[in-house]
């Protein structure tokens, strides 16, 4: 249980059965009047934002959020299925919840799934993953027109720009936060 005086940026509370994160916070107190806590909140399920002023007598429940390590199993009808490595329990995330992470979903990749009262809200992947290049044009030596990069497709179907010496069948490392090529991985 939180009271208004616990409010601060980043705090996650439950209002009307939805989890909210405090994105902006200010303490105001007119003259000899009561303390007011002006907050901007974002609904962690649908992303809606709103402003609300709380008083010191207001109390909130903590949003019951937890991150669980889960493995990616498969995609079916627009849903991504993950399995809890310990309980074998399965959850399904939609396209919005998976977001950009869909580009890096290797079979059985271990991800942190953010859950609100056992409902999945989002996913975070390891910062770096190694993937095999499945499609690349051959390196035309001396071809300076194409510049310093060329497009390739990796095993997850994701396309990105890599240095021209990368060839089909090679393994490369990608930063999942930026989606960019980092280095060639030997072996």
């Amino acid at each position: 249980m939180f009271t208004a005086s616990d409010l601060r940026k980043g705090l996650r509370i439950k209002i009307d059965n939805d989890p909210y994160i405090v994105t902006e916070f200010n303490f105001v107190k007119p003259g000899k009047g009561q303390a007011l806590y002006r907050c901007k909140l974002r609904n962690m399920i649908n992303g809606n934002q709103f402003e609300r002023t709380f008083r010191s007598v207001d109390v909130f429940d903590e949003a019951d959020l937890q991150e669980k390590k889960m493995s990616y199993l498969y995609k079916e009808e627009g849903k991504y299925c993950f399995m809890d490595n310990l309980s074998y329990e399965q959850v399904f995330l939609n396209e919005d919840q998976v977001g950009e992470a869909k580009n890096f979903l290797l079979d059985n990749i271990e991800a942190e799934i953010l859950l609100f009262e056992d409902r999945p809200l989002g996913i975070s992947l390891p910062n770096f993953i190694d993937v095999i290049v499945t499609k690349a044009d051959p390196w035309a030596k001396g071809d300076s027109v194409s510049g310093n990069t060329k497009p390739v497709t990796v095993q997850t179907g994701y396309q990105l720009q890599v240095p021209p010496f990368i060839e089909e069948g090679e393994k490369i490392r990608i930063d999942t936060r930026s989606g960019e090529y980092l280095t060639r991985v030997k072996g």
Partner: protein
Amino acid sequence: MDALRLRAQMIQAIRRFFQDQDFLEIETPLRIPAPAPESHIDAVVAGAWFLHTSPELCMKRLLAAGYSRIFQICKCFRAGERGDRHLPEFTMIEWYRGGADYRTLMDDCEALINTVAREIGLDDVVSWQGRRIGLKAPWERISVRDAFARYATISVAEALRTDRFDEILACEVEPHLGMEIPVFLYDYPVEQGALARVKEADPGIAERFELYIAGMELANAFSELIDAGEQRRRFEEASRDRRRKGSPVYPMPERFLQALPRMSPSAGIALGVDRLVMLLADKSRIDDVVAFTPESL
């Protein structure tokens, strides 16, 4: 100039302003056995006693003892107050005038702030966060009732009835106050002035004002309540309110109540020094005008 150097100059200028008018500078204890019981001000506990939330009670005892023009620059402590304009430990300039009412204190504010601004090399215009505010007297004076009628979505009566007075004041009225010239917001509903005298012509109104510059509350003033019976009744009401909310209830300040009948009609005011520095140093956060915040210790 660096905010701490400006702050030092301003405090010297404030001190000189009062000394030049034959005010006596005094110091009262920071640690006291009984802070004024007010609904929404929480004291910091210091052993079996408390750190004062303002020097008001001790200064009024000095008025009752015959010191009629006094000022004090001191630290005040309020538990749980922290924001862009609040520190749990802040600096106040508080002054009292025997034989005066709150209108004289409005004149004092105009003279004091103009003097301080001049001494740090500003003329009669202050620039704060991209806004220019003229300091030339006289400043605007608007009653709480008129300010609600002009800026708020509901009347004062409606705000009081629904227990939203503070919220409407802070969210709808304050942002408009003192944006071109400073504003005195005066004549509060009597329940909003626990230590203020009631207006003779209207028992529902307390002779209290707040000074606003650039939407920022800088000072709170009263024609002082000197009726000890009425003061005790209001303290008891505030204590009941605190108990209802589950806030700590403070001992009754008996020595203050005993001294009150000897106090002649007076007016008193407290002005936040940190906020005045914010204004004249063009800083948006109180953190930028103090040497250390609690978080940095």
